[in-house]
């Protein structure tokens, strides 16, 4: 599948590589020019829409801030830990739901309804349970990442080609061998996909929580710059978070393409 998609893309690139690139560059330039125009005209509050050079300087200022890397480390740690916890619980529950139709019938509809609910509504509770420090942020991220993982593992398990399981049985694989040599490799696609979604929603959850009520983290920095009315730095850090999210998504995307080849 990925192969076909890639070759199609290559073909398209061959014929329209320059046209595509031109359109892309032109539209980015237009957006930047409009931004700069608005910023310089003073039509909107000058400080709310800083000039591009001011934003670039803002990025520099953020990166030069000695606390930035520590704050980024806090956020990254919270996201990582919450994805790990979400994966551990999500995969376990997903396997139970995927292999036991009885439990799936009872619990899966509930999970489906809960999944799109904004998890931030739990945040006040989480603060009471885990404090205003990193605990409540990790809990927030864990709740967020649990849902995409549990749902994709449960459905991935049900969509395993039954003949693979029969092959395992016919060669007398033990339950452990069935799990490690058949179920897990057969489910890698849905599991990686679930992890990717989980990373996205846990990033949202953690950052959102940090902007609400926190003492550290990138979300906390965004709020702090906002409170100091340091707009260039606030835009700067938002752009840095964007870049980071794009990078991680790209990483997961590569992982998926690699395994389907």
């Amino acid at each position, binding site marked *: 599948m990925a192969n076909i998609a890639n070759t199609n893309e290559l073909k398209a690139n061959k014929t329209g590589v320059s046209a595509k690139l031109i359109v892309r560059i032109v539209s980015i330039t237009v957006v930047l020019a409009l931004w700069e125009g608005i910023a310089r005209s003073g039509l909107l509050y000058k400080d709310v829409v800083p000039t591009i050079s001011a934003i670039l300087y803002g990025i520099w200022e953020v990166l030069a801030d000695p606390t930035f890397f520590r704050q980024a480390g806090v956020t990254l740690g919270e996201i990582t830990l919450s994805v790990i916890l979400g994966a551990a619980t999500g995969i376990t529950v997903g396997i139970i739901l995927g292999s036991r139709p009885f439990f799936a019938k009872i619990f899966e509809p509930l999970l489906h309804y809960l999944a799109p609910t904004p998890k931030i509504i739990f945040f006040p509770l989480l603060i009471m349970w885990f404090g205003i420090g990193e605990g409540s942020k990790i809990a927030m991220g864990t709740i967020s990442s649990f849902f995409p993982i549990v749902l994709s593992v449960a459905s991935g398990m049900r969509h395993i080609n039954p*003949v693979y399981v029969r092959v395992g049985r016919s060669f007398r694989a033990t339950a452990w061998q069935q799990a490690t040599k058949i179920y897990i490799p057969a489910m890698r696609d849905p599991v990686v996909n679930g992890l990717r979604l989980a990373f996205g929603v846990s990033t949202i959850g953690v950052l959102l929580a940090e902007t609400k009520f926190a003492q550290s983290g990138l979300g906390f920095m965004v709020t702090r710059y906002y409170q100091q009315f340091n707009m260039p730095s606030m835009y700067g850090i938002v752009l840095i978070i964007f870049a980071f999210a794009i990078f991680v998504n790209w990483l997961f995307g590569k992982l998926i393409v690699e395994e389907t080849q």
Partner: protein
Amino acid sequence: MKVNKKPAVSVGGASSEQPVLVVDKISKVYQTNSGSLIAVDGMSFSVNPQEVVSVIGPSGCGKSTLFNLIGGLTPPSSGKISVSGMPVNGPHPSISMVFQEESIFPWRNVVNNVAFPLEINGVPKAEREEHARRFIQMVGLEGFENHTPSQLSGGMRQRVAIARGLASEPKLLLMDEPFAALDEQTRLLLGDKVIQMQQELKQTILLITHNITEAIQLSDRIVVMSYRPGRLKRIIDIDLPRPRTSEIVSSEEFGRYVAMIWDDLREEASKGMAAADSARATT
């Protein structure tokens, strides 16, 4: 030891040896919402060492049920199956199954697919890979050891499945319509490959099929099944010279066998078709 009455001893030469497979009055009844369905009804036959036997029957005659019963994936309702004198209760190490569906693992390359049964038995990596290569060569896939299934054609993938079946060195290779999804030309050519492999390994094979040509091309004997309930209708000895190639399909004798088997099958197949038609009419 009790040997089934009708077929068994009809094959020349092999009768003195112990049969590789004995199927003794085997039955399978499924309970459905509309009552019980007899899929296989009291079938008995045996397969002798180095023999190729085909089970042929119309769609819905219980061939696949028989495949799962012999492979030990489904317990029989009554009757006994034994392989080299040992009872089959669940998957047996002396039997390898080759499935009709695409069954090789897409996440493993050819070597690791073929080595799978050895990996399950705890054979060390280097040893099992060397072993696997031998069977890859036997099915004519040397040079494709490190290819992934997605890089192979359907016929090549089924050959990998056969090599995997052979890799555990079973006493009986049990195949369920392994070439059903392939076109007729590929099927004939793969038949040649199977014959070569069978000669080389002296492999005992039980082939489940609905394809008359394939059955005659490959078999020493053909077990014809009736449509629902799946009963043994007749066992036909195929007295065609060996070694055979796919050219044999154009011979006069071959044509006579086709006519003979079709004569048996036509009646059963039309029963099956009528049943399918009426089932459609009532829904």
